Structure formats: structure tokens, C-alpha cells
């Protein structure tokens, strides 16, 4: 205490003028404030990189329609059958779609000139001019067949680069920029109106766009309500029953038994947390599968074997909460136990002398002293349960029938899991943003509820 006060004081005291001048550019290093910032810098970088950036990016992604199909880094302009349909349906430009989208290949002087520029062998160009000039093809394959029929048959890759130059439609073409798309469209139809260009660019764009659609979808989807309810149920039950309730029971119980057995007891309860999550959940599955321990044991009593974990929604909830709760309880147990240890033993002795029962000791000594740890555990575990995914994913994967689908799992299923290879990043980010907001709101409520300012106020007595 004294030492730190000295440092703080020496920082405030002006050092000799000469010394200050000689260290002018590093002057801030000689203050504890400056040093503090320096020492905190790595942490700040980590916090920015791994906490603030993801949140900021989630916020950005949430307002896009990003999917695997749109890509993350930006889009191109592609004239696919889908875009032609949009052009017809949404913009009523069926005729334009027909004109630009019908594959057409014409062997013309323009194309031949382009080939010369590309450096294609002159003999090949000559024979193209002699044999095919003026011919029109409805598919690339037909044109390529004829190119291969030329006396000096070019190899496949040359054929491809030749046929490319004779395409006179936009069918299936992919352009990296709007300008090149419009230029190509104008080359085919010079009389395009601005409106048509606009529609063409909008309907062929493959990349993501800004939108608030994700939130509208979330608000209107019947699944949202169900999943939200599931999440609240899961967090509340696990938190109250295990992460604080059972953790408290364990902490108090181990407080009243001798140190050595208490230590062993705590280690046992710590196992779920320190064992690898896959193995931990797999053990539960072995217990609950219809060929597992529970079924095998109960079949001796004539109970039909079943998958106990997924049998009904109630069963699934039981397992999800217990599996998560056993992991969570250990943390609360350690924190509460150490907080109880910090209570001066004399208080317990005094209480015993006064004839207090165990329950009265717990009620009047232990619990009041644990307000701060309880706040911490509740707050921390609420946030961690809200985002907890691994145990539930491995155990029920949201089943049966979406009964245990919680918000974080729903995000995972939307943003990173799709049987047809089209992951919905934007939608997933919007869901994640909702979770971030819920988390912040809950934290604020907790701080208010437990009167944070009073808790961090300066002690009134010097110990």
C-alpha cells in the first residue's frame, strides 16, 4: 500500500527541470498513468481484435443479406436464368431479358479482330474467316464443334478463348464491375435506356446489399418466439438450479466438512468442467441412448429401451439443463467457497457461542457476505449461458423437433449449417446482434439490481 502511494506521489511531484527536458519525448513513461496505458496496450489490442471487432462486424453484417451465394468480399454481375426471371417479373422487362439472355454466338470481324489482339495464331484466324465468317450459333458447344473442325484443330484451351470472343449475348456471362456489364450490354443493344441499365445492374448483381429485411424476418417468424422462450427457459433454469443454487449448496456443504474430504469433493465436482466437452457429452449420450446404460439397466425391470435424452421435450430439457448445469455449478462452487473462506472465522465462532444453528449461520453470516460473488456469478453465467452452444449442440442438437433449440444454436444452424451449401451469414449476424443487445440489457439490469456503486464504494473502515 505504501509503496504504491510512493510511486503515485513521485509521479505528481515535478522532477528536476533538466531531467524533464532530457526525457521530454518519453516523459509520459515516467508517470504511472502513462506506464499503465503502456502495460494495458496488449490487452487493449486483444479486446479490440477479439471482442469489439466481432461485435462491430456482427452489427455491420446484420444489416446485409450476406449468404454463401452473395459472398462476403463483394459481388459480380452475372446474367443467370434467375436474374433474367427477376428482370422479367420484378421489372417487367421480359423483352430485354430475352434479347440479352438468349445465348448467341456470331463469327464476325469484330471477334476476329479481338482474336488478333489476343495473339491467337494468324492461320487459325484466317481459317476461321474463310470457314465460319457470318455464321450464327445458339450454343457455345456448336460453335466449338465447328472450330475444332477447322483444318488446324486448336487445342481445347485455345478453342475456349476463341469462342469467348464471339459471344454476342450476356447469357451466363460474369462481369466484375457494373461498367463492364453496361458496356457489354450496350455493345449488343446501343439503345438501352437508363432505367433498363439500372434494372439490369440491380437484377444481375450477385453480391450482398444493405437491408433491414433480416430484422423484419425475425420479427415475423413464428420460430422466433419459440426459440426466445426456449432460451429464457434454459438460461433461467440452469442459472437458478445449478449455476448459483446448486453451486451454493456445494460451497456451503464443503465449508462444513473437513478440509481434505472437502477438497476431494470439489475436485470431483470440477471434473465436468475440466474434461473435454465432446467426451463429457458423449458419456451422457452413452448413458441415455436406447442401447445405453440407462436402457440396459431399466430393461431388467421391463421398461422398454428408448433414447432417454430425445424421448420427449421434457427429457431433452432435463438432460440439456443437467449437462450444462454440472459444468456451470463447479465455477460457482469455487467462487462461493473461496468467498466463504474469506469470511473471518471469528464470526462463526462468535455465532456458535451465541447458539446459532448452522442454518442461522448461513442465513445471517454467509449469504450477506456473498452478495458480490452472487452478482458476479449470476451476471457472468447469464451471459455465458446465453451464448453457450457446445453442450447443447452435441447433446440434442436442438431436438426433438426444435424443442431445445436455443438462440445461440439457432444462430449456428442459420449462419454455419445448411444442407444445400448456402450459409446465411447476414441473417445469422442479425440474430447474434439481438443476443448482444439482450446481453447488454441484462448486464445493466443486474448492475442496477445489485447496486453496483455501493459494492465498489470505498470501505468505511481501514483494515
Amino acid at each position, binding site marked *: 500500500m505504501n509503496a504504491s502511494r510512493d510511486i503515485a506521489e513521485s509521479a505528481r511531484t515535478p522532477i528536476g527541470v533538466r531531467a524533464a527536458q532530457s526525457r521530454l519525448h518519453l516523459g509520459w513513461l515516467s508517470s504511472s498513468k502513462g506506464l499503465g496505458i503502456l502495460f494495458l496496450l496488449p490487452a487493449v489490442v486483444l479486446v479490440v481484435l477479439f471482442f469489439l471487432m466481432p461485435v462491430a462486424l456482427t452489427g455491420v453484417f446484420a444489416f446485409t443479406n450476406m449468404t454463401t451465394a452473395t459472398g462476403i468480399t463483394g459481388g459480380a454481375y452475372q446474367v443467370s436464368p434467375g436474374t433474367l426471371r427477376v428482370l422479367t417479373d420484378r421489372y417487367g422487362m421480359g423483352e430485354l431479358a430475352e434479347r440479352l439472355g438468349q445465348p448467341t454466338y456470331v463469327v464476325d470481324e469484330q471477334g476476329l479482330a479481338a482474336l488478333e489482339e489476343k495473339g491467337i495464331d494468324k492461320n487459325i484466324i484466317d481459317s476461321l474467316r474463310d470457314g465460319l465468317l457470318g455464321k450464327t450459333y445458339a450454343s457455345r458447344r456448336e460453335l466449338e464443334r465447328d472450330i475444332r473442325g477447322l483444318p488446324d484443330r486448336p487445342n481445347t484451351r485455345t478453342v475456349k478463348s476463341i469462342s469467348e470472343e464471339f459471344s454476342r449475348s450476356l*447469357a451466363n456471362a460474369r462481369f466484375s464491375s457494373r461498367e463492364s456489364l453496361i458496356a457489354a450490354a450496350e455493345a449488343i443493344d446501343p439503345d438501352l435506356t437508363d432505367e433498363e441499365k439500372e434494372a439490369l445492374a440491380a437484377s444481375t448483381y450477385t453480391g450482398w446489399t444493405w437491408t433491414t429485411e433480416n430484422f423484419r424476418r425475425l420479427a415475423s*417468424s413464428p420460430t422466433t418466439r419459440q426459440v426466445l422462450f426456449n432460451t429464457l427457459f434454459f438460461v433461467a433454469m440452469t442459472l437458478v438450479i445449478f449455476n448459483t443454487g446448486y453451486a451454493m449448496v456445494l460451497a456451503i456443504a464443503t465449508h462444513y466438512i473437513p478440509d481434505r474430504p472437502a477438497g476431494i469433493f470439489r475436485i470431483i465436482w470440477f471434473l465436468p468442467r475440466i474434461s473435454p466437452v465432446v467426451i463429457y457429452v458423449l458419456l451422457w449420450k452413452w448413458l441415455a441412448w436406447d442401447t445405453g446404460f440407462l436402457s440396459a439397466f431399466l430393461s431388467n425391470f421391463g421398461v422398454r429401451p428408448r433414447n432417454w435424452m430425445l424421448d420427449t421435450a421434457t427429457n431433452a430439457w432435463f438432460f440439456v439443463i443437467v449437462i450444462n448445469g454440472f459444468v456451470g455449478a463447479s465455477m460457482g462452487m469455487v467462487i462461493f467457497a473461496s468467498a466463504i473462506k474469506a469470511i473471518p472465522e471469528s464470526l462463526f465462532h462468535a455465532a456458535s457461542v451465541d447458539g446459532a444453528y448452522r442454518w442461522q449461520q448461513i442465513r445471517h453470516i454467509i449469504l450477506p457476505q456473498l452478495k458480490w460473488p452472487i452478482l458476479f456469478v449470476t451476471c457472468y453465467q447469464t451471459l455465458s449461458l446465453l451464448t453457450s452452444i457446445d453442450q447443447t449442440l452435441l447433446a440434442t442438437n436442438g431436438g426433438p423437433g426444435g424443442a431445445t433449440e436455443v438462440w445461440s444454436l439457432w444462430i449456428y444452424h442459420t449462419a454455419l449449417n445448411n444442407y444445400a451449401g448456402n450459409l446465411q451469414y447476414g441473417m445469422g449476424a442479425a440474430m447474434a446482434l439481438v443476443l448482444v443487445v439482450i446481453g447488454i440489457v441484462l448486464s445493466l439490469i443486474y448492475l442496477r439490481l445489485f447496486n453496483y456503486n455501493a459494492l465498489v464504494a470505498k470501505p468505511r473502515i481501514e483494515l
Partner: protein
Amino acid sequence: MTKRLLTTTAAIALVSLAGAAAAEEVTIRVWAGGSGPNDNYRVDAIEIAADLLEREAAIRGEDLTINVEKKTDNTWDDFKQAVTLAAEAGNAPHILVTGHEDIAPWAQSGLIVPVEDYLNLDAWPINDIYDNLLEIASFGGVLYGLPQDAESRPFFFWKEHMKAIGYSDEDLEALPDRVESGEYTLDNVLEDAKKMVDQGVVEAGYGFYPRPENGPDYWQFYTSFGGVMEEDGRLVLDKAAMQRFYQFFVDAVEAGVTRKNHIGTPNDQWYSEVASGKAGIWHGGTWHYARYTNQEGLKDFFGNIAFSLIPAGEGGKPNTLTHPLVYVLTDQENDDEEAIAAELIKIASEPRINTLHAVKSAHLGITHQQSNIDLYAGDRWAREATERLLPFANAMPNNTDFGTYWNAMWGGLEASWTGQKTPEQAVSDLEAELTSSLGEAIVIR
């Protein structure tokens, strides 16, 4: 042909295949999804192709060394997640073996490039591949992939259990035809399954024992009840058909022939149960033959199991679904590597090489000429399954939005199956969800 011309052609050929340098070493990475122990030739074929391509190059006087890095993934979800994330990070493998339904979203994102840009479609063996398979590998009239295998998904009946409820050998012989003609329907499936359970032939919940997880199979039941997945390039939700399809599984649960908590049964358990006669009627894919006879130790497949199309339901027709896997090429910075990868998948489609995969994994062939290869022609399963199933096979659409539809369809089925919602409620939620997420991209009727 003049001498000069010859040299230019040779030069172009040289440059095109091996880049400018004479001695070249390239590493081609190939990833296959949904591939178990019987599917090793999906990636091994690329290695064989690399050997051939190196020899071809050597004859042309080039020194080309191709290293093939192979990776197979047993699941689909994880594989697709890995591929899309690798691609976003710029590390996509050169060649992917994946389901054809990925072509639409991946082509839109520019993750994959058309094979048509690199391959002569009139050359062997591409000109021998079945047209309908090539069509399934195309998007917007452009060939994006080369079919890697084909299959179809039959209904299976455990003969002994069928006999126990009164079927004779002749009845079982005639069953596939009765299914095909629409005489034996999904209603009969429930009836027979119920008899098996009631008479104690199989345990409760094992009369009808469907696939225990999401998969293309479930679209077959939608089709069986008259549903259509896509029409004129637009997705279609037929509410009545969807509801009948959901109802079927609810009925199965209510009749006690299917377990309410069936979804989520571990795959290994499921395979060992159906291959050992624990279930009466179930459905699977042609590749199950390999699993039953290799890993599960079923000695006499044909003596124990009868197979047919998926029976018709009310308002629909018997059908099966083929879900061909395709080789696709990812967009790479180095165009020469893409060209080499394209050559490799072309050579890997050689009937003889593809037959190794087809027979080992009990998939169906992709080319006409495979029926002239003894290994394929001599395989009873390949022959019978091709004849009985493939003519009635349809495929899922290559549509960017299909994944969203699929996820929602599965969610609804799961919810009604497990009793969380009534089929009616599930369909109306499905409609709400699809209207909100897909809008004009889906027709609802």
C-alpha cells in the same frame, strides 16, 4: 498441316497444360463430402488421373509432377461449412466432390467456375456421360460440374418379416411392380408395419424405420404425396402435399410403427439395426448395399431384402430421388492449376476409373460404356438397381434458395414428427416462414 502449324499447336498445348516452364510441380487439393470408408475412390480417382496425366505430359515432352492432397469428410454439414469458409479465406481446394444442389449458390458467389470453360464437352469420356446427369450438373445451361456418381433411394423390406405377416415368395417377387404401378401405397406400408408390430415380429417403433437424420430422402415423400419442388425455375410449396407428407410420419408414430424420438438415432446404430433385421420396412440409398454387405456383415442381401421405389401416397406417384455428386472446380488465382484440375476430373470420369467407385460404394455409373465393363456389368446390385429405380428418378433443383426451403421443410417435419406442432400448424408456420424469407422466389399453393 504445315510444320510451322504443328509447332505452334504443340507450343499452345504445352503452355496451356503446364504453363511456360518445362518442369512443373503442382499440388492439387481435392475434398470430398459425405464420404465414408467405401467412397475412397471419389478422391483416389483423382490420384489415378494424375498419374495418367503425368504420363501424357511426359509423352509430349513435359516434365509435370502432380501431387494430390486428398481429404474426405464423413458428413455434409461440416464439409459444406469447411468449404465455404475456406473459400472465403481464399484457401479453397481445387476440386470438390459435392452434391449437385451446391452448384447454384456456389456459382453465384463465384466460388466455383464452369468446367465448360476448360473442357471439350465433345471429348471422351464427357460425351459418354448420361445426358440427364449432365443436365443436373448444369446451372443456367452452363456445365458447372462433371457427375461423379449417381444413385437412387429405394424402399427396403426385410423379407422374413414380410413373410411373417403373410407374404409369400411370389408376393414379394411381385412387390416392386405393385409399388411401381401405384397399387401398393404408403398406406399399405403403414398397414404392414403395424401388422409386424402387432404380431410381435419387430419391436414397437421398428415397423417403419426411416432415415434418422435430415437428407434429400425426405423430398421423396413430398413427391409421393404429389408435391413439386420447382417449376419454371421457381420453387414451389404445395401446402396440401406438404401436409399429407407430414401427416404420414405423424400417423406412423401414432400407429406405433415409428418412434417419436427416432430423429437423432446414431447412424451406426441405425445401419446395424436395419442390416440385421431389427426393422421391418425402411428406406435408404443404393449405396446402403455396400454398407450392409461390407461393414455390417449381411451375407445374403438378396435373400433377406426386397427393394422397390418409394410407394405413392395420396395425390402422388411412386418415385425415387437421385442425388448425383459432382466434381466441381473452385476459382483459383492460378489458371494453369485450374486447367490441370479440369483435366484430372475429366480423366477421373473414365468409365473404368468411375466403375471402381461405382461398384465399391454401390453407386450407379455415370457413363453408357460402364455397362460394357465386366466389373460393373457383373454386379447384380448395380444392374438391378439401375433398371428398377433410375428411370423413375428425379433430382432436387439447382436453385440458390433451395437450401432455405429445405431447412424450413425439415424444421416443420421434425416439429410434427415429434409432436411439437400439428402437421397443419407446421405447414402454416412453414408458409409464413417461406413467405417472409423467400418472397417472390417461391410459389405457394
